[in-house]
């Protein structure tokens, strides 16, 4: 048997030197005259171990990481093709604690298989969900997704099945499935990982959504900052089309479904669903007022399912193993699993898929291992740039949509950024306003003007100009933005701002006092 070597081509692994490692391994194979097959897989998501190279042995896969190009010679010398010991040896990948503790449903294949091999996808359980779906009535598919309890993983947490039902029940000669892959939130990379590491699961999920609602055309709108995801998705769609997974007869059934990959152009606000639809139509990415709901009048005015990547990629396993199987994971009204993305100043950063219900302390301290800098954790921002900053006092909050809402926060797309005690929360609050000002689409006044005024007022607080009065003004402004903005950009910018002010008041003391205190 020719040995197989797995070297991730995931962007995160590439950013840490996976390409150089691959080149070094190829060179070494050539020089030693050894034959081996190199597979460029996705990442399993343990970024503190990337580039993580795996070798398939008779006893299963053996991982090594983080591998540097300078390690390659000695890896060969230690017989790594047979799983030999080396200082980078990690053993069986699924026994690595960070990975062993996870519940991988949506990400079961990510980092394991060759992303562009449909055979490999099928041999790891792929297409079973779609196979079941083509034999079912649309209403039954929608029912199964509804019963699974799956809620929108983009951040809003709206029940996916209910969205689908509205589209199914709306009569139209043309309907669309739109996948929101405009993953712009800092601390999030789950969509990118799936698109680069297991693209067929997204294609399968979209095809199921199409059959369930009567839509025959799908679009994946991917942000331009993700060139590798765009390339992989384009290749995967072509392969799926050739294999009859997409086309006029999906898996040989009478159902037609095809899809296209579209690329955004650097506007954060296009992650908001209605502005994404405008962008797809070739317009400015300006937010639309709701109603009408996109499910009734969406893309080009037609009924449209618009779902996040992870929502759609979670559908195949629900259709394969049943609604109850999925629903049995989780807590309260948050059912199933959620890919938590642990990022920023953290020792063990990466993607951790688990059932809902872990507490922030478990995620940050136990799984994440504390800060990378070794300093105490000061704050964690949950849910991207529009999410609240949580102090240690709230670390007992369980990861659940409702529990976070009750603490004036949100789980969003489940990204967590860890900050150590060098963070200045006034600066973070100001940045939230600045980011909103840069990215505002300009349609509604609270967001367009409020964000700029918010920066100015916070600058006054920083300069010690009538700090108390100006902080009251910021609070009032946040109230206006929260309730007066058309979408989540202006509406949620108050979360990071107000949570900073509420939980870290010492950082908002005027500058002279702060200097004196130090």
């Amino acid at each position, binding site marked *: 048997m020719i040995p197989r070597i797995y070297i991730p081509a995931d*962007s*995160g692994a*590439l*950013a*840490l030197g996976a390409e150089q490692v691959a080149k070094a391994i190829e060179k070494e194979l050539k020089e030693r005259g050894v034959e081996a097959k190199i597979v460029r897989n996705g990442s399993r998501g343990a*970024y*503190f171990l*990337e580039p993580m190279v795996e070798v398939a042995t008779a006893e299963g896969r053996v991982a090594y990481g983080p591998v540097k190009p300078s390690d390659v010679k000695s890896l060969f010398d230690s017989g790594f093709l047979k799983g030999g010991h080396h200082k980078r040896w990690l053993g069986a990948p699924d026994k690595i604690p960070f990975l062993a503790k996870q519940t991988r449903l949506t990400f079961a294949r990510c980092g394991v298989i060759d992303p562009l091999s449909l055979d490999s996808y099928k041999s790891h359980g792929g297409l079973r969900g779609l196979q079941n779906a083509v034999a079912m009535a649309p209403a039954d598919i929608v029912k199964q997704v509804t019963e699974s309890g799956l809620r929108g993983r983009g951040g809003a947490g709206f029940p996916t099945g209910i969205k689908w039902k509205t589209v199914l029940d709306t009569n139209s000669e043309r309907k669309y499935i739109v996948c929101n892959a405009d*993953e*712009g*939130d*800092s*601390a*999030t*990379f789950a*969509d*990118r990982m799936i698109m680069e590491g297991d693209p067929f699961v997204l294609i399968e999920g979209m095809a199921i959504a199409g059959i369930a609602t009567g839509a025959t*055309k799908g679009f994946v709108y991917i942000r*331009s*900052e*993700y*060139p*590798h995801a765009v390339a992989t998705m384009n290749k995967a769609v072509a392969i799926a089309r050739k294999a009859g997974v997409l086309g006029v007869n999906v898996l040989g059934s009478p159902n037609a479904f095809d899809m296209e990959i*579209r*690329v*955004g*152009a*650097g*506007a*954060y606000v296009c992650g908001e669903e209605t502005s994404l639809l405008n*962008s*797809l*139509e*070739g*317009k*400015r*990415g*300006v937010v639309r007022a709701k109603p009408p709901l996109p499910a009734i009048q969406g893309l*080009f005015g037609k009924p449209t399912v618009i779902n996040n990547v992870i929502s759609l990629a979670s559908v195949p396993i629900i259709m394969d193993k049943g609604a109850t199987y999925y629903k049995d994971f989780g807590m309260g009204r948050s059912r199933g699993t959620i890919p938590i*993305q642990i*990022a*920023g*100043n*953290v020792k063990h*950063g*990466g*993607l951790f898929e688990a059932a809902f219900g872990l507490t922030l302390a478990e995620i940050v301290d136990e799984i994440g291992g504390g800060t990378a800098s070794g300093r105490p954790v000061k704050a964690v*921002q949950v849910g*991207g*740039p529009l999410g609240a900053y949580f102090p240690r006092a709230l670390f007992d909050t369980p990861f659940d949509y409702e529990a976070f809402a009750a603490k004036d926060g949100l789980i969003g797309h489940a*990204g967590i*950024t860890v*900050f150590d005690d060098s*963070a200045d929360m006034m600066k*973070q609050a100001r*940045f939230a306003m600045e*980011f909103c000002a*840069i*990215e505002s*689409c300009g349609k509604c006044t609270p967001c367009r003007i409020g964000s700029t005024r918010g920066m100015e007022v916070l600058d006054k607080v920083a300069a010690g100009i009538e700090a108390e009065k100006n902080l009251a003004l910021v609070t009032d402004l946040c109230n206006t933005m929260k309730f007066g903005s058309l979408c989540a950009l202006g509406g949620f910018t108050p979360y990071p701002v107000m949570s900073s002010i509420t939980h870290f008041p010492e950082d908002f003391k005027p500058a002279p006092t702060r200097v004196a205190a130090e």
Partner: protein
Amino acid sequence: MPMQPASTEIASRIAAIIEELKDLEGPLLPILHGIQEEFGHVPQAALPVIADGLNLSRAEVHGVVTFYHDFRAKPAGRHVLKLCQAEACQSMGSEAVAAKVKQLLGIDFHETARDGSVTLEPVYCLGLCACSPSAMLDGEVLGRLDDEKIEEIVAEVRS
């Protein structure tokens, strides 16, 4: 800047891109990406051609081009260096990275070096948030930037 009619050669290259993509549903963004790929920016002269090809007003096309951060009105430097300045990278010192790069290159964000070697831009998230601070150089992703890596990048764009 006086509006010059597009030279025949440029106009025909633009027309070819429009022709190839105009039957897509919602063709404007793919066309603009196509033009930027071909010319390195979206030349002013392209706007009336696109407007004409898609039966839009020139104002509508101008509105779309200027809405999106990606589309350039003039060509970038030979290299484009994007430094992530979003929260996850902030927590790992992206601000200091930016300050150092700016100082070494002698330019600020949104500027191009006088010798045309490099354009420096901020970017808000590259999805490399567990490998912060991160950057993108001509489409190539770079993570866990430290002084040594920054100096390598600067040397590369200067060469």
